[in-house]
């Protein structure tokens, strides 16, 4: 089975920089941003989206529901 191609979006304002998404991403597609958000956290950043396989692990583990996961599909 070829790996699915995926992508995530992080709601960086909502993010608290806990790093759990980073810790579970099997392809290391996520990293902390260098910038602060208005709460003062370094939010997660969807950095290497080419690596993303749409496994949703990051979504599953994110305690602040910051992540939206997309998967590439055959266009209809």
């Amino acid at each position, binding site marked *: 089975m070829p790996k699915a191609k995926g992508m995530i979006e992080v709601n960086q304002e909502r993010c*608290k920089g806990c790093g759990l998404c980073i810790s579970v991403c099997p392809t290391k597609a996520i990293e902390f941003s260098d910038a602060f958000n*208005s*709460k*003062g956290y370094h939010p997660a950043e969807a950095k290497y989206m080419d690596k993303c396989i749409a496994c949703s692990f990051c979504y599953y583990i994110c305690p602040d529901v910051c992540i939206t996961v997309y998967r590439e599909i055959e266009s209809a």
Partner: protein
Amino acid sequence: MTTRMIFAGFGGQGVMLMGQIISLAGMIEGKYVTWMPSYGPEMRGGTANCTVVLSDEEVASPVTDKAEVIVVMNIPSLVKFQTDVTPNGFLLINQSVIDRDADRSDIHVIKVPCNEVADELGNLKVANMVMLGAVIGGTDIISTDNLFKALEKKLSGGKSSLIEVNKKAITKGYEIGKMALAK
């Protein structure tokens, strides 16, 4: 004379301890003192702060909404508290975290690069002591000596190995505070 002080920042920035040490120093100096924390659910994302009152007479109210000296360690605290400094009062800003200016011109604003100084001293955790030094440097409200005594008391026991670096941080901060005023 009565001086009211507010120390505000994130929970982890040691604002409560700053207030306690200066209160202790005040007590050692023979003043009447009270220390009052903001308290609430352990949260997280809000600001924590404490109010210290140093006075020559009995402290009537440990709570206040205005203060002669306000220390802000992060942006939300700046936003929340800068308007509460009394005219001619002091606002001390943790420059390492707060990348903006105060909107007030009727007060003394002192910016302190707490983290950088602490980093130089090899212990990021003493950033709050840098600020505390700046406070007394800027306001002369307490003698450095009594602040050191208070520090020693607070860190006696297990943490006494940390006294030296904390003193250094205070001294550095003190200089920054003094210089800022000199400007």
